[in-house]
């Protein structure tokens, strides 16, 4: 059995996802970072972007995360985000509408949020 790490993805108001994983890829302010079991203790600031979790069953969970932190210690990884949504929960049409609206209103932050959401769904 491959080594595993325990992942907790928590948003400010709920627990979004938790389980065992073999690899977690997240975007920090200084670039993408991949965490595998046995990584050295880490505490980083996350950019808004997609987080990819490869579960121990071989599935891939993608979530859109808007700002937050990644912390890893003792084979336990916590992803803290103010807002976090799993790709399955994201309403594509709504995100697209939000993107349009953000573009027309020139709201850079909202545009970025909608963009991250869409990318999490489409997997790019």
């Amino acid at each position, binding site marked *: 059995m491959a080594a595993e790490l325990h992942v*907790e993805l*928590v*948003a*400010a*108001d*709920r*627990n979004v996802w938790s389980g065992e994983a073999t690899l977690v890829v997240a975007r*920090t*302010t*200084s670039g993408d*970072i991949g965490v595998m079991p046995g990584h*050295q*203790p*880490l*505490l*980083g*600031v996350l950019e808004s972007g997609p987080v990819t979790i490869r579960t121990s069953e071989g599935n891939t969970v993608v979530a859109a995360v808007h700002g*937050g*932190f*990644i*912390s890893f*210690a*003792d084979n336990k990884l*916590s992803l*803290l985000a*103010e807002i976090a949504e799993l790709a399955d929960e994201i309403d594509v049409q709504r995100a697209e509408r939000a993107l349009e609206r953000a573009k027309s209103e020139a709201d850079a932050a909202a545009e970025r949020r909608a963009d991250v959401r869409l990318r999490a769904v489409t997997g790019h």
Partner: protein
Amino acid sequence: MGAQLRVYKRRIRAITATKKITKAMEMIAASRIVKAQRKVAASMPYATELTRAVTAVATGSNTKHALTTEVEQPSRAAIVLITSDRGLAGGYSSNAIKQAERLTERLRGEGKEVDTYIVGRKGLAYYGFRERKVADSWTGFTDSPAYADAKRVAGPLIEAIQTETAEGGVDELHIVYTEFVSMMTQNPVDGRMLPLSLDEAVEESGTKGEILPLFDFEPSAEDVLDALLPRYVESRIYNALLQSAASEHAARRRAMKAATDNAGDLIKSLSRLANAARQAEITQEISEIVGGASAMADATAGSDK
């Protein structure tokens, strides 16, 4: 119907209507407590993890950050007071306000100027009526606060603490809210959010005695702390708002239960009085009839002779 009886009947009707309202409010509040408690529980993982992370950075690095070190001569402090938007919750808001008054008194005693920030219409009305200065206020969400609301409250506070004291900033940040202990007990409490006292933070996150690993910071300890502390303040305020909301509903439920019971008692004693009044009326009528009949009998008996 006699005048007395009619007055009693009218009062009973009025109180029955009031009782229906208070009973409904009691039941609504009771159902909302459960919802509010669930929200408190749902926000716990984030708060615990965040506190852990803050403790880890603050203890695991030699970083001196403005928000974790105490100023030698703190001269200005900010207080956030959380009250409710609506009344009919017993002493809920006034207890929180009293707690804030005590804290203000204490801080003034220590020679600090105090800026007050208020959440909730009741607190705002109290300060407004006394024409006291309020630095900023927010209303309209105390029933069920969202994280966005906590962010709105936290924004100006973080700004204030990051500003130099001479330019109108503050050195300390205190919060006054109502802690939800159980359905029956809610305590107004005050606590200092910033500068962060590490002992408290350690106790809160339940990491006491646990040795924290040596973290690798990405991009650097300073940057991580810079990003963490505003989130920490937001999360603390969010937690305080949620607990206050749960306490508010619990206080309202208790107040409305007392009002319903009281209305029940009033109805009971008024019904007794109304019954007595009706009985007195009947007794009087009977005695009048009997009196009248015997007078008639006496009169006819007299004419026979």
